[in-house]
């Protein structure tokens, strides 16, 4: 028997989860549910439609938190990260320029 696809919704506090983090998580989960993020009463309203079997909104929020932590880290580490990535790409391309 084909399992009926479920719908879920939740509200996330934008001070904790930025819209960008939620959208990034929505992209990652695009094969598991149709995710819609929009401003709502009391925060960002996140709704899930056509969820695949086994989908759980809590897994989506874990991914949103992962993305938010990545964004937090980028504010701190972007200089170091940029130097390393630039050096790696330039060396691979055969450029002699210093990072």
């Amino acid at each position: 028997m084909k399992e009926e696809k479920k719908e879920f919704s939740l509200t996330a506090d934008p001070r904790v989860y930025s819209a960008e983090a939620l959208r990034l998580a929505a992209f990652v989960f695009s094969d598991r549910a149709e995710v819609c993020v929009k401003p709502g009463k009391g925060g960002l309203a996140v709704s899930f439609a056509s969820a695949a079997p086994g989908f759980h909104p809590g897994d989506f929020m874990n991914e949103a938190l992962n993305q938010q932590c990545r964004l937090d880290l980028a504010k701190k580490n972007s200089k170091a990260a940029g130097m390393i990535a630039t050096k790696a790409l330039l060396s691979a391309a055969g450029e002699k320029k210093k990072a």
Partner: protein
Amino acid sequence: MAQKNPAKRTSPAGPPQLLWRREGADCLVTNDFGHYAWLKCKDFNLLAAGSLGEKHPKYAELADKGFVRDRLDFEGLAAKWRSKNAYLGTGPGLHILVLTLRCNHKCLYCQSAAAGVGARNADMSVETARKSVDFALQSSNPAITIEFQGGEPLLNWEALKAAVLRARAGAKKAGKQVSLALVSNFSLMTEEKASFLVENEVSVCTSLDGPADLHNRNRLFSGGNSHAATIKWLKYFQERYKHQVPGYRTFKPSALLTVSRYSLGRHKEIIDEYVKHGLEDIFIRPLAPIGYAKKCWGQIGYGAAEFTKFYLASLDYIHKLNRNGTVIREKMAAMMLEKIVNSRDPGYVDARCPCGAAIGQIAYNYNGDLYTCDEGRMVGWEGDDTFRIGNVRADSYRKVMASAATRACVLSSNLESQPDCARCVYKPYCGVCPVYNYEVQGSLWGDMAANDRCGLFKGIFGALFALLKKPGGEAILKKWAGK
């Protein structure tokens, strides 16, 4: 270590950067330079607070290793960092030529992957093989390895032969050090082919999954006994190695172990099989649910905890054998130890920052398509070309190195941008895999908190640091590094 150019003293003088992991009353600390130390938690608290006095018994060691801010040897520590991350100064060193998709085996972990022996349009043409070699020789890396893989590469002997000859001629012209390696199941090896390989300094590597019953269970071969063919030719190449002749160097053959669910619990028999056949390295490689293996994961796969248990038991057994005078080492451990103990880059493209996808290795598909790595090629085989970086006939080397997939892999595998990795005590020695993340977690970045590959590497590092902590274990493990 000379103490030059001390930084301006600040009070209190804490660590300039610190990664740690608490284990009971002890704490393992590491830093960007690849140094590590075991501390009691109370000493860790002193270090972190900048209150570890110069008379403290651990002070000198920690200062030498770059853990004390006002005692930094800038030149020495920068040199350590550079040595450990030497790959950042070079381009792709590993070039994997997939000479054919055809194979005469039906191995469980790639049963849907390889095409049948009679399949058409699955072989690399001689022209593409030569072009692939020419492309590899354009790498900015002064020392490259060209590895011939399949399917079973011996099914396309003409292309293999042409690529070997092209590489040997091209190496001199390009001023490069070129190593050649063949990965084969040996079932189609002949005396004539073997001699050609040996005389052209092609090293050979095969798969050996353990004793005959286990090997043949994993590696189904309708044309005969896979294990018997493997052992027969292993012995042949070992004999050639023992009887070196002037004019060329003959390399010792090696073997790769792929751990399937059937291997779990049989570590002793597997290791004994390697020892029995004179192999001095065993590379305990976990299976990854990528490409073909993803489809049959339920049958052959396992979790990080199961693999870690197997790996720990294997290391313990190898140690026991070493203590009794048997020569054998685990290759993954040896490569990690090269970083941990010697702060040197072992050339392991799967565990570095950024990962070796495209900038450390390139996979050349039979039709000339280029992928970030062999795992990326496997994803391509499933119809998803996320990791395709170009084509050997259509694209220039520089274009490939600047492709969207190359850049995406570099950025997403940069540990400085990974929230968990940036804080992890094993960061100086580890690396993430964007292909694994993409296949298992749906994004190149992945989520390390719930990532099984991360759990697996943490298990391996945990085992190595626990052994390094033991006085006897450290002596043996240090000799594994840089062997």
